């Protein structure tokens, strides 16, 4: 499999980059929401919220870039995928509504605080599950006729999509737990360490299950991963997963507060690369390639100017915002 360097390929990597940045950045925000029920103490919850309150909005913006960028660069794929994923998409959007407003609302009321804590946890869980299900639904293939989605509104629901949904919930929870290890201290950090162990085992099981199930979805996936000479390129992925896992276990054993988060990001990166290997060059698996879906060159070039100048700038000031709010968050020392 050789990858040509042309505009659609560059844009495929840009969109993939935006979605990946979204997944890891909003991933730990959403993971905190998923873990919220396990931290019933108000003081703990205040700290957990305050670790992401200044940055969550920026994290979520990558989702808008992923969606908007896809409409701009691959309008046909956007037009086919969104109706196919209608129910998970609407569920995700509504989940994000509850999750997003909870950041401000829970500080605006005393007596009903639990209501918005529930909105934060429930919204995060629903949004994550919906994203994972959407991923599975894309991988398993979508019924396309002409330039339109041609399936029903429940086609997305299969055992495989439920599996990817659960896998993503576990993955985001692991990101959230390692984020807490890095950003908190004392008893809260200890419990986050404990959760990290449990979730890491679950995450490895989930990666294994999805990896085993994927080749059964379509013969193309099997060939992509196991046919000679592709296997030279694909074999390093599981080997790297094993290596990162070993490093992660060592970091947990040494009680290093920073490494687990970044090693979990690496695990996500490897899983994501695996997805890319499975899908390329399709943007709608087995039916629409990135070249078929691509916008005309002048649309892609027009945006490429903006992306090459603005994305480094965005990464710069986003890093600055994280730097401003660096360090451990202590009870009562919150930003709120």
């Amino acid at each position, binding site marked *: 499999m050789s990858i040509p360097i042309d505009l659609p390929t560059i844009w495929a990597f840009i969109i993939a980059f935006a979605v990946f940045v979204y997944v890891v950045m909003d991933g730990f925000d959403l993971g905190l929401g998923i873990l919220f029920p396990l931290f019933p103490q108000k003081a703990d919850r*205040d700290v957990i919220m305050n670790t992401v*309150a*200044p940055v969550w*909005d*920026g994290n*979520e*913006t990558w989702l808008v*870039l992923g*969606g*908007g*960028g896809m*409409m*701009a*660069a691959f*309008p*046909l794929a*956007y*037009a*086919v*995928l*969104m*109706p196919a994923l*209608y*129910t998970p*998409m*609407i569920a995700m*959007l509504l989940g*994000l*509504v*509850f999750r997003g*407003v909870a*950041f*401000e*609302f829970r*500080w*605006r*009321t005393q007596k009903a605080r639990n209501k918005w804590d529930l*909105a934060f946890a429930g919204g995060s869980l629903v949004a994550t599950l919906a994203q994972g299900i959407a991923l599975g639904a894309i991988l398993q293939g979508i019924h396309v006729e002409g330039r*339109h*989605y041609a399936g*029903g*509104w429940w086609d997305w629901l299969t055992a495989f999509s439920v599996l990817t949904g659960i896998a993503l919930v576990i993955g985001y929870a692991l990101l959230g737990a390692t984020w807490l290890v890095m950003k908190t201290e004392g008893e809260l950090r200890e419990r986050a360490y404990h959760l990290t162990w449990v979730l890491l085992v679950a995450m490895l099981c989930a990666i294994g299950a999805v990896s085993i199930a994927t080749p059964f979805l379509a013969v193309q996936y099997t060939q992509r991963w196991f046919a000679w000479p592709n296997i030279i390129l694909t074999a390093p992925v599981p080997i790297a997963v094993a290596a990162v896992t070993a490093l992660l276990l060592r970091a947990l054993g040494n009680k290093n507060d920073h490494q687990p988060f970044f090693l979990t990001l690496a695990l996500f990166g490897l899983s994501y690369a695996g997805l890319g290997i499975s899908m390329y060059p399709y943007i709608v698996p087995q039916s629409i390639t990135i070249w078929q879906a691509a*916008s*005309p060159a002048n*649309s892609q070039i*027009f*945006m490429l100017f*903006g*992306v090459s100048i*603005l994305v480094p700038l*965005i990464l710069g*000031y*986003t890093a600055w*915002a994280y730097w*401003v*709010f660096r360090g451990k968050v*202590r009870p*009562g020392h919150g*930003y*709120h």
Partner: protein
Amino acid sequence: MFEGWDAVVLARAQFAFTMSFHIVFPAFSIGLASYLAVLEALWLATKREVYINLFNYWLKIFAVAFGMGVVSGIVMSYQFGTNWSSFADKTGPVIGPMMAYEVLTAFFLEAGFLGVMLFGLERVGPRLHFVATLMVAIGTLISAFWILSANSWMQTPTGYAVNADGQFVAADWLKVIFNPSFPYRLVHMVLAAYLTTSLVVGGVGAWHLLRDQHLAGPRVMFSMAMWMATLVAPIQILAGDQHGLNTLEHQPAKVMAMEGHFQSHKDGAPLILFGWPDQREAKVKYAIEVPKLSSLILKHSLDAPLAGLDTVPRENWPPVPITFWAFRIMVGLGFLILGLGLLSLLMRWRGMMYQSPLLHRFAVLMGPAGFIAVLAGWITTETGRQPFTVYGLLRTTDSASPLAAPAVGSSLIAFIIVYFAVFTAGVIYILRLMAQPPHPGEQGPTKDLPARAAGITPAAGAAVEGAR
């Protein structure tokens, strides 16, 4: 449920519903972000405590409103794909890049600096904090630029070609972005946002002045807001008039619907003040009209001929009653805002600015007027360009996703339930914040609750004190 319903009608209802909820938040936060930047600049320049108190007071309200704008906005950006996939496929190459630029130049700027603006004063110091506030304010304006450009292109498409797949593609990006209606729409909407915010700020100030005329914060905010209304309302009426003339040139059927002109008039068209437009019978019942005034306004000549909807094929008519009445609500409120501005000017001149319960009651009553006017204005322009999504080129019925009615009906109900529950709570929280007057030593979102007031490091606190 929803078997036998028209899926496109449901999708339109869902878009109208989610859009109407969304638009009020940006309309408010565009103006409020600029107001916050002005307040912080005044504080930095004069070191007067009243300005930082007002800044912190409005910052808390901004945080709640902005959050609601963000979450309802993400829904909008994905709805193009979920519910209007044919539209997304056909216009993606033109509209998509504009929205991508909105994300890259505006959303990231707002979101990246919002955290510092809300929580970072002690961490970065007053000057860098002001930069953050400024970036958020500039971000809201850049966002308005791109999204109004995209909307305007749908109303007055230029600079495009159509490719073999039936997609619109850009032939000239400058003509796409600076399409004929864009400058007018941008000015009209940004002024509307500023007016909306000034009415809210003025209404809140007046509410507290009605209780105590001597409160420093309410006095300052009321005076600032009334200057804004006084100066901007006449400019807005002028801008609206110019926007209308531009619409007459590019979307005549919309103006015909706004005016209720079913028939053409050869020598001078009347201005129909009120009446009941009957779309089926193609006439305005119970019309109260001023002869020839419409020709005077639109053509600057009493006897100028003016075409009516009878010159437009019936399948291309917009829904006249909605367009007609939404337009009248917007214009009526515009003149009421002008009236409030003039009354405040009179009271200011007579030295009664803070002592006139009449003025204060009027201002409280007008507090939400901007929101209603903005909604009415958008309903006018979006209903008036029907039955097209890309004016004259792509029909709304050809833009929708291939979804079954039960799918769209279910999501519509879910949106209605969730939006009413969530945004009602948000509005109540905002009203609760507004019900308190700004206090001396007002705190921002950083430490507004006693339980969390302990976390300021002495050095940073001293820096802020020093800056005062």
